[in-house]
């Protein structure tokens, strides 16, 4: 990639944000404030979840208001195993991924039969169903949730250790962001993006849109499940409140705020949104009112999120002169 392309506002800011995120553990260590590690660690976890959502929302144009379900499945994959004294990280991961794949497949197959308003409502309904399921499972904490004693261990690595979790999350986020970039121009990504605006045309090109969307939905669900696993280790607690629709809504806000369907959007959006939340919390007890107002204003204003804003800072190239149509030469 030519250097000039990397110095555009968007990749530049994106790169700086990643650099900043990499420096947080160092700064936290120097200041002797391990709290920051957990705080920003949470940003990373949600950035991963937002990136997962970006695959189908940003690229595919599918407004899923139920992704909290998959985070929740990831969290409870760890929690339930921990409940039985099992601390194998691979087991936690396998449980979470399997649950998300299966539930993603089932709910996706039903939800993707509708579009527009129907799809939004049905994804919301399914995640609410998940919420009620976990609330009613008294054995696993029910409404109050339960602590996670046995955090995920991968050999010598214990994700219950804040620093370990932070680095694992960071590496995953970097990898995910790279893959999102590649996915965007890959055949799969092009199909999703084409179908977002013109699904009928994609079908007419010989591509069954439903199948591609379902695969995208399941992948998105599984990655969100990984975010859930990380969240479980970060908070050492599992609660049905991970599955409430507010969480799904906030994930959407992060994706849109950062810039839908862009590579750096989810990360920028998650960091910005959660930072804003922390700022408001420090300022007033009624921070949720401010947040709600900000979200509504953001929706009214539009304009492609943070990435959209940044890309407008770049000097515009001159408009190309239209070439005369030649037609088929005899």
């Amino acid at each position: 990639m030519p250097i000039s392309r990397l110095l555009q506002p968007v990749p530049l800011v994106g790169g700086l944000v990643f650099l900043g995120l990499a420096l947080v553990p160092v700064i936290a260590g120097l200041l002797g404030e391990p709290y920051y590690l957990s705080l920003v660690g949470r940003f990373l976890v949600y950035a991963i979840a937002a990136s997962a959502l970006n695959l189908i929302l940003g690229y595919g144009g599918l407004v899923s208001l139920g992704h909290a379900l998959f985070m929740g499945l990831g969290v409870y994959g760890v929690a339930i195993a921990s409940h039985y004294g099992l601390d194998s990280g691979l087991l936690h991961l396998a449980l979470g991924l399997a649950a998300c794949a299966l539930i993603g497949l089932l709910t996706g197959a039903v939800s993707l039969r509708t579009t527009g308003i129907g799809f939004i409502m049905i994804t919301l309904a399914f995640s609410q169903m998940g919420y009620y399921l976990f609330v009613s499972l008294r054995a696993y904490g029910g409404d109050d949730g339960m602590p996670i004693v046995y955090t995920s261990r991968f050999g010598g690595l214990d994700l219950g250790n804040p620093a370990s979790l932070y680095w694992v999350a960071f590496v995953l986020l970097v990898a995910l962001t790279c893959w999102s970039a590649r996915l965007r121009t890959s055949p799969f990504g092009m199909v999703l993006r084409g179908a977002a605006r013109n699904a009928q045309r994609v079908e007419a090109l010989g591509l069954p849109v439903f199948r591609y969307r379902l695969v995208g939905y399941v992948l998105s669900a599984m990655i969100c499940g990984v975010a859930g696993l990380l969240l479980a280790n970060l908070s050492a607690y599992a609660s049905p409140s991970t599955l409430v629709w507010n969480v799904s809504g906030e994930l959407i806000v992060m994706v849109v705020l950062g810039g839908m369907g862009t590579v750096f959007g989810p990360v920028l959006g998650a960091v910005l949104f959660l930072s804003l939340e922390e700022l408001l919390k420090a300022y007033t007890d009624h921070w949720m009112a401010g947040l709600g107002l900000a979200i509504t204003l953001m929706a009214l204003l539009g304009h492609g999120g943070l990435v959209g804003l940044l890309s407008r800072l770049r000097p515009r190239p001159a408009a190309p002169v239209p070439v005369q149509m030649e037609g088929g030469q005899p």
Partner: protein
Amino acid sequence: MTNLVIAQLLNGLQYGVLLFLLAAGLTLVFGIMNFINLAHGALYMVGAYLAATVYNHTGHFLLALLAAVAGCVVLGAALERLTIARLYRRDHLDHVLATFGMVLLFNEVARMIWGSQPYFTSVPESLSGTVDILGISYPAYRFAIILIGLAVAVASYWLIHRTRLGMLIRAGSVNPAMVSALGVNIGLLNALLFALGAGLAGLAGAVVGPIVSVQSGMGDSVLITTLVVIVIGGIGSVRGAFYAALIVGVADTLGRIFLPLLLREVLSRQVADAAGPALASMFVYLLMAVVLAFRPQGLFPAKVG
């Protein structure tokens, strides 16, 4: 046993008519304005708080109901003109975001005004007794709710099938562009529809106040159940909303009581006690999934062909 079934059937009916009050306005907003309004539950909450506050301060129940409905109509109209109207041309995504923000705002404002604890209000004296129906003694207040709900259903049928406004509504739910092209003041129609829906939501909240916990966020879960009703009934169809609301109301109520009992017959007590409540709370969502699997357009869709 039969007494239990009858009482629960009536409870289901009562829950059903409440869902209808909420679903009727919402499904029209979806179908005609193609606008997804997640703040509908917040209007339900506002209605509950307004009615409870007025009743607690004046002791006049009818006044409280009126205040709640009027308040919600005004609030609905204001919201529509100030924010919602700007969003009609936008993506559904923008609708979701804007109304999601409103829900957070409303929930927090409610907390600021009335605190986080449930706000208590009591059933009015005149309705605190019981009535004898179908051989059992049933709480008079709940019975009154059923009557109110059915009255609204009849009134909405009359409105939609016997008035000019209703004709516009029916036309609009099948072909919104055409109605606009016919020169109807679409802005006024939209504001009217939205305010009407808000009023119904407020009424639902107002009547439900004495028998549920009035607190911030009470509209959230009810909204989602309302969405399930609309999906099952068919988007844009008030008739569908009515039947689906009753189906969901009865299924949910009976399911919560009888599914755990049923499970105990077939499974070991331990498993049944764990799975019973879980299954009962998921029941209506599973119902929705089944309906969608076979009829994605709902059971009584508004659009034909």
